[in-house]
């Protein structure tokens, strides 16, 4: 991998909190099984929810799911299938907010769970920023490993689109 390819993205932050092996695999463009039912469902939710809002704002390596410009400024949203991995989702969104901040844009974040008809606000504060900084360094360390971290059986494996890859 050359240095230009190495970049932490929001998705990697999300996966970091779930499974470091996934971070390495995605970082090497070894994507998960796209036929997996949960992957298809995620894609569907992404494509068919919030039709009135503008989709996909690309900043750096990150793609934000939805965004809108209000009187109080920019609001970016991350759409998730469920709130089960809420803390990972919060950090993912916080990462986007910090990417925008580095570019001089103050924004607010909203986690969206359309199936649960819920949303949650996410703000950037000093503590989160410190944590993000640590996480980004940790992600880079994983990405530079010559081989992915060994698979570990966790509860997420049961529904993971990499499960067959990891456990075959």
């Amino acid at each position, binding site marked *: 991998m050359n240095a230009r390819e190495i970049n932490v993205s929001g998705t990697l932050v999300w996966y970091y909190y779930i499974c470091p092996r996934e971070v390495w695999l995605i970082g090497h463009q070894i994507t998960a*099984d*796209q036929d997996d039912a949960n992957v298809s469902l995620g894609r569907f939710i992404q494509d068919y929810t919030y039709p009135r809002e503008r989709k996909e704002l690309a900043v750096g390596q990150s793609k934000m799911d939805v965004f809108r410009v209000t009187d109080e400024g920019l609001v970016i949203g991350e759409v998730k299938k469920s709130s089960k991995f809420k803390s990972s989702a919060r950090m993912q969104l916080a990462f986007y907010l910090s990417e925008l901040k580095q570019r001089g844009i103050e924004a607010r974040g909203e986690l969206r769970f359309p199936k649960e008809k819920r949303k949650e606000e996410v703000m950037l504060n000093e503590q989160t920023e410190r944590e993000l900084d640590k996480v980004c360094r940790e992600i880079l360390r994983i990405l530079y490993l010559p081989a992915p971290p060994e698979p570990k059986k966790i509860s997420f494996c*049961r529904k993971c689109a990499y499960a067959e890859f990891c456990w*075959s």
Partner: protein
Amino acid sequence: MKKTLYVFSSGELSRKDNTLFFETEEGRRFIPVEDTGEIMIFGELTVNKKLLEFLSIKEIVLHFFNYHGYYMGSFYPREHLNSGFMTLRQAEHYLDEERRLIIAKEFVRGAARNIRQVLKYYHGREKDVARQLNAIENLIAPIDECKDISTLMALEGNIRDHYYHAFDEIVGNPDFIFQERTRRPPKNYLNTLISFGNSLMYTICLSEIYKTHLDPRIGYLHSTNFRRFTLNLDLAEIFKPIIVDRLIFSLLGKKMITKESFDRVTEGIMMKEKARKCFVENLDEKLKTTIKHRDIGRPVSYRRLIRLELYKMEKHLMGEKEYQAFVARW
């Protein structure tokens, strides 16, 4: 899991709005595109660029078979999964003779062990295949000692010779004697069935490769010439005995295919359409059958087993886990 669409009738396949539309003299029907994994075409089919574009977006592979049922070629849409990392690893293992041999040997070993498993089953059912079984068992260990691909290929041919000689005893039907392996064109009914089954297997493997980060042009046992697909040929070696051959034995045993299922034509012997349909339907059924996988903890279909082989290959190439071919336990 997405379905395989087998087209035997003649007509026009086209894109209609956001789905597939098939129109023949007998009728018209819509085919749900999201539910279609690959399309195998046996009939006369008219397609246009708009359709190919659509199939490309939907990542659907088209396999074409000619009038005689032989594989002609595939519409393999542009690669949708790209991992420079994996491509480099795959090429690296091809270029390094030693590493290439390690993988090629495992394909031959896997094929031989599955062949042994098939023979063991018939040996247990009082078929007189002990001699062939024995000969093949004695040829498995020498696979390790092969120093180059050509010796390995010769050994593989040797194993296959013994294996095919057991076919007459297994089938036990004078209409379906094996004689010798003949291709292009196959010279008897049994060879016609084997060729047909094998070419279906190659296309199925190709479709599964399309869903991974591997390049089908880089095979290890079968030489790459950077034009033809070869990795699917390697992969098919492992599954031919347990999927295709077993299916042939079962179709013949149940008299679902008889000598009346064939036509003699100037180019050789041809399966009638009805026989082809019967073969394909039963193959499809077999591929959908699931078994319990020890490590994954989910039921896994035969077709999925093919994909798992590719995942194991990827892990081998990544240097994570040495590839071990799937061997049937039954």
